[in-house]
C-alpha cells in the first residue's frame, strides 16, 4: 500500500465525495480503498501520529481530526507528545 493511497482515501473522506459515506459508515467507506490494517485502524482511531508515520499528508490528517471532533489543541498535543517521546528516546520521528 502506498502512502498516496492513504492520502487519497483521506482526500476523499475529508474533502471529496466520500465525506457523507464516511460520516455514515466510516469502516465500510475506508474498506473500499484496500489499505493495510494499520492504515485503516489509524484512520478510524484518528491516530494522527500513526497516519503521518504511514506517509499520510499532514494537511489531511489535520482535516480528518477536525471532522471527527478533535480540537486543535488535542491535535497539536498528540504531535508534540510524539516529538517529545522520540526526542527522549534519542530518535527523531521526522
Amino acid at each position, binding site marked *: 500500500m502506498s502512502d498516496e493511497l492513504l*492520502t*487519497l482515501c483521506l482526500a476523499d473522506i475529508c474533502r471529496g465525495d466520500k465525506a457523507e459515506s464516511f460520516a455514515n459508515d466510516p469502516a465500510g467507506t475506508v474498506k473500499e480503498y484496500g489499505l493495510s490494517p494499520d492504515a485503516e485502524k489509524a484512520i478510524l482511531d484518528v491516530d494522527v501520529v500513526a497516519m503521518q508515520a504511514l506517509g499520510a499528508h*499532514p494537511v*489531511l*490528517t*489535520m482535516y480528518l481530526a477536525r471532522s471527527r471532533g478533535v480540537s486543535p489543541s488535542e491535535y497539536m498535543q498528540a504531535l508534540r507528545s510524539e516529538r517529545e517521546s522520540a526526542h527522549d528516546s534519542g530518535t527523531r520521528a521526522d
Partner: protein
Amino acid sequence: MGQISAAVATVHTPYIKAMVDKVDKATGDKVFKGFESLGDSIRSVNPDALVVFTSEHVLNMTPRCAPPFLIGTGPEHPIFHEPAFKLPAGALRGAPEIAAGLIKKFDSSGIDVAHSVHLKVDHGTVLPLDFMGLAFDFPVVPIVTNTMFPPLPSLARSYALGRAVADFVESDDCEANIALVATGGIAHSVGEPAMAMGIIDEEFDDLFLEALMANDDELLMALSPERISAAGNGTNEIRNWLALRGAVPDWKAHQVLTERRIEPWLTGVHQVRWTPPGQNK
C-alpha cells in the same frame, strides 16, 4: 493591448477569520486595515478582472490528479464550504475569455497548464479576496499551483508562468485591464509537528521579504527545496508570489504590513503591494 495595473500579495491563513478573537484588537485591526489597503490598491485601478496566483488544500488536486498548474476557465468558481473558516457562500465570477487567452499563451510559451471549467475555490483564494473587499466585485481567473503533491513545479517554472501571464496581457490578444493577486505563504506549517511545536521560521520570512524589496529574483529563485521544506510545508506557496514577480519584474515592492509572529494564527502575516516604475507608493 491590455495592461497590468495593480499587483498585491498576501497570506491566506484561515485562522485570521476562524480565530480572530484569539488575537489582541490592535494587531487584528492592523491586519484588517492592511487587507483594506491592498483592496483599495486594486479597486482604485478598476480592473476588468483579477488574475489570482493561488493554492488550494486538497480540492481539485488530489493524488488522483495533481497537475503543476490548474486554471479556472468557467463563468464561475464555486466556493467550497469550509464551515470552520467562515467563508462567504456562493461563487466567484469567472472570466472565461481571459482564461482562454491565457491558456493559448501558456501553450505557445511551453508551459503546461491544466484547465477546469468547474474549478472549486477554497480559503486559499477566497479569504484574501474577501478581506480585501474584492471577492464578488470583479471577475476572477484563479491559477492554482500544486503546492501539496510532489513533484511540485519549480520556482523558475512559477516565475515563467507569471511572465507568460504578463506577455498575454500586454499582447494584441488582450484588451483587458488586469490586477494581479498572489496568495499564500510565507513560512508556515500545516498539520505537521512543526506547527504543533509553534515553530514559525521568521528567518525565512525576513530573507524572502528582503529579497522581494530588493527585486533580487536571483536569490528568490535560488531557494532550495530543502530550505523551503524546512520552513514548513505551507511555505511551498511562495511559488504564487514568484509567479507575480515573473509578471511584474521591474515593479517596486512595498511592505504594507509585516507581523512576524502571530502565535494564535501559527504564522506571520505579510502584505505587499507593487508599483510600476515611476510611480510612488
